[in-house]
């Protein structure tokens, strides 16, 4: 599978360095190695969800418990989580570190991913969610640390878009 193991490891290690102790996840192709790494890590609480919006509640519970968390999801999962983000994370000022695989963007072959790709950034902007891109191994670690710091500092959701350039090896 041409999902980059090396860059998945880079992302996972950066989350660990930030002190992330709980990951919620719903599998998608680009996330498989990240989820496996969490599953193999005895110090990580991995919560496999039925639907991504549950992850907002799980992360809120973790925040109340004093545990830093991150959410692994596809952009369609982000779209499925919007009410939870607005009516919980925004309403109650809950920090969320959302790692969102940016499917349906440049280079996408799967027709079913393309509509979600079109609307991902406009929806993030409409919700007022600060976001950035994980698009190179050189900057990914620092950007994850910065996103985590901003989420905790501002008590709000912050998104990192996992791009094809980082996650996929043609």
């Amino acid at each position, binding site marked *: 599978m041409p999902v980059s193991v090396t860059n998945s490891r880079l992302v996972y290690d950066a989350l660990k360095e930030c002190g992330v*102790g*709980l990951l919620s996840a719903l599998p998608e192709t680009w996330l498989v190695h990240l989820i496996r790494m969490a599953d193999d890590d005895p110090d990580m*609480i991995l*919560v*496999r*969800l*039925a*639907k991504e*919006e*549950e*992850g*907002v*509640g*799980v*992360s*809120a*519970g*973790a*925040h*109340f*418990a*004093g*545990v830093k*968390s991150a959410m692994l999801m596809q952009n369609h999962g982000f779209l499925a989580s919007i*009410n*939870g983000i607005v*009516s*919980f994370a925004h*309403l*109650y*000022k*809950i920090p969320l570190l959302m790692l969102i695989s940016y499917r349906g963007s440049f280079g996408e072959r799967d027709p079913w991913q393309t509509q979600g790709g079109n609307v991902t950034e406009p929806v993030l902007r409409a919700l007022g969610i600060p976001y950035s891109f994980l698009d190179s191994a050189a900057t990914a670690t620092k950007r994850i640390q910065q996103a985590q710091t901003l989420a905790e500092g501002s008590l709000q959701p912050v998104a990192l878009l996992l791009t094809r350039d980082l996650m996929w090896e043609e």
Partner: protein
Amino acid sequence: MLRIDCLRSIYPELENSLVVTIMGAVAAELQSLGHRPNFFYLQHAMGLASSTGLGLALCLPEQRVIVIDGDGSLLMNLGSLTTMARYRPRKLLHIVFDNESLLSVGGFPTATSTGADLEGIARAAGIPRVNTARSVETFQAAVTEALRGDELTTIIAKVEAKGPAAYVTDLSLLENRFQFRRHIQSLKK
């Protein structure tokens, strides 16, 4: 059976637990009995109270966590039953007040009014212990037993569709949220 009577019957038992409730009548009625710093009322985001309780229970496995859910909220997030059952935290108690109604918005009947069986759904989702209570006495006994036990439990309490006179309280959402987190952090010291 009235929800307020059920809540009153277990109120003393809530003292040493972390309690997460849904919005509307449940939140208002519990507050009317007396707010405590270990109570968090999720006044929106229907469906996510159980997910919040799961997150708490997974991060604090020795801490008793009680979610007070409702039929309308649970029906919006049935997948949460499967996620809770998957990890089955031993000290998580999930109470569902089933009044077969979306009471807060005017009493529209939910699918439990036409036969959807939350006990059956919870059991089939894999929740290891599931009860239905139809009287305050059986409800109180089921909660007491679950709190003494060491197994993820869902209790469906069939209650009348009657709520409080008012839903808005003087506790602001953010005050409640910060107080709840601070309370949990104080338990660690």
